[in-house]
């Protein structure tokens, strides 16, 4: 089951560029939360601060606190421990090209030394079913490379790979922006299915997508969180003029 995320006074920099400024928000457990905003507004940086991927860039810096459940992400644990709890799906599908479909899904568990064949088989099948990919690949699990699938299938494979380690939080950084409309619809269905079991944070450029999948939506602009509320409120009666301008397409 998922856990909630509590962010307070989060600031992030790339070199001297202050990408995130004083972000405070509470992301509830077992719901989908969408983050929208124009390019460069800091929404991707924000999700990368949750699983401490931001700091893998040597010029990056973070201050403030992020809690997932009762763990202080920057105090109580190493980045490796945190990332074992948090799954992440990236903008471009990045399956491992030298591994079979099966090995791709099993990679997270194997990485951590998990070797029980029977359980691995179960986990791989369950994760692929959850990612709505199992039916399409069940005959080629160990025969085909992760990279031999279509773009949309690759992204669902990446989702299965993230789900296989049973994460408490699933971060998705524009998971459908490189995909065609049919694949996009499949990913959205998937998020809809998964959100009762996982806390999902999805960054998107596509406002309709946010409206379709998320209970809550946050609007970022120039490194600040302008507004964070129920998706319904954001899209029908935004509290801030800038949010309204953005969702009605007046800028961005």
């Amino acid at each position, binding site marked *: 089951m998922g856990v909630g995320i509590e962010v307070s006074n989060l600031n992030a920099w790339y070199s001297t560029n202050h990408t995130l400024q004083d972000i405070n928000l509470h992301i509830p457990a077992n719901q989908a939360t969408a983050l929208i905003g124009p390019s460069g507004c800091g929404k991707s940086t924000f999700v990368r601060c949750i*699983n401490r*991927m931001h700091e*893998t860039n*040597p010029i990056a810096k973070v201050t403030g606190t992020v809690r997932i459940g009762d763990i202080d992400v920057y105090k109580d644990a190493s980045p*490796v*421990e*945190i*990332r*074992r*709890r*948090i*799954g*992440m799906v*990236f903008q*471009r599908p*990045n*399956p*491992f*090209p*030298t*591994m*079979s479909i099966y090995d791709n899904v099993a*990679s*997270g568990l194997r*990485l*951590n030394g998990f070797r029980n064949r029977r359980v691995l088989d179960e986990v791989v099948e369950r994760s692929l079913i959850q990612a709505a990919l199992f039916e399409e690949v069940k005959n080629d699990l160990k*025969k*085909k*490379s*992760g*990279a*031999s699938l279509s773009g949309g299938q690759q992204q669902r494979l*990446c989702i299965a*790979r*993230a789900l296989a*380690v049973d994460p408490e939080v699933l971060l998705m950084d524009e998971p459908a922006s490189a995909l065609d409309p049919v694949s996009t619809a499949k990913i959205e269905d998937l998020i809809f299915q998964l959100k009762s079991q996982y806390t999902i944070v999805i960054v998107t450029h596509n406002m*309709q997508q946010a*409206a*379709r999948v998320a209970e809550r939506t946050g609007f970022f602009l120039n490194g600040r969180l302008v507004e964070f509320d129920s998706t319904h409120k954001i899209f029908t009666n935004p509290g801030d003029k800038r949010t309204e301008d953005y969702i009605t397409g007046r800028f961005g």
Partner: protein
Amino acid sequence: MSGPPLELTPTPEPSSLGTESPAPSEIRKFLTSRGSSAISDRAFRWIMLLCALSIFAIVALIAVELVKSSQLTISKFGLSFFFKSAWDPVNANFGALPFIFGTLTSSFLALLLAVPLAIGVAIFLTEMCPKILRGPLSFLTELLAAIPSVVYGFWAIFVLVPILRERVNPLLIKALGWTGFFSGPNFGIGLLAAGVILAIMILPIISSLTREVMTAVPHTQREAVLALGATRWEMIRMGVLRNARIGIVGSVILGLGRALGETMAVTMVIGNSPVIGKNLLGLGYSMASVIANEFSEASDDMYRSALIEIGLALFLVTIVVNGLARLLVWAVTRGAPPRVT
């Protein structure tokens, strides 16, 4: 979530069907004047083909010349030349085995020492090196490749061999003497010294090529592994080395090629005596060394033919080793699904 209804612009009827042509612009006239470019395109193709074919021609010429010039020993000893350990110019009795053994042993020793070190250097340079150090470090590695091998040889004689003789070998004899691979007498020079100097010489080739292929692995692969909760080493193993493995094997093959053919530095430290044995501290002789040492004093035709056939043997050994390496790549990647890029 439906947006406002789309307002479509009405498609205008085509006013003209292009029958009346306006005067062509300056650019259009220029481009038209260039014609079909078919000849230059075809010429380019043939020239490139010629470049490729020249490789075949060079290899074939060398092989033919080697076989032709070693006719005397080929007809006298046949295949046994490659399996005999006699080397007796006075009685015209020749066998290549000790030289093949010396070349292979010193080269594989070099790989054993150089490959882990080279991959370590490449990992440090691509994954962990602070920016300020990266430039100087890669420059220094490449500088190592530019040092002439005779200089390596001198360095080996005056620095490496004394170190081996006084510090390393006594330890090896004490700790690993029971294996039989390290037993006295301790000359300093010998197979191990040749292996170590070769390792130093091929290190820059292997590490700089490995660094290139590792740099080519997309950053998204690293992030994918990191996001699964990998440590830095796990990320490098699964996200970088695994993706780069074919290129890494390729760089090892190139390094091995250099080690097999290296002449000067090896000649200066291997000991130059045709011995076969498992003692790595013992003396040896390599194919390239024997040719370099003895060709000028090869007074009769049989002797000269034997040395040229050693050259042929080196040529064949290189081909066989390359073939085996390719087989290895094939065997490792066979289980894995075909790579789509």
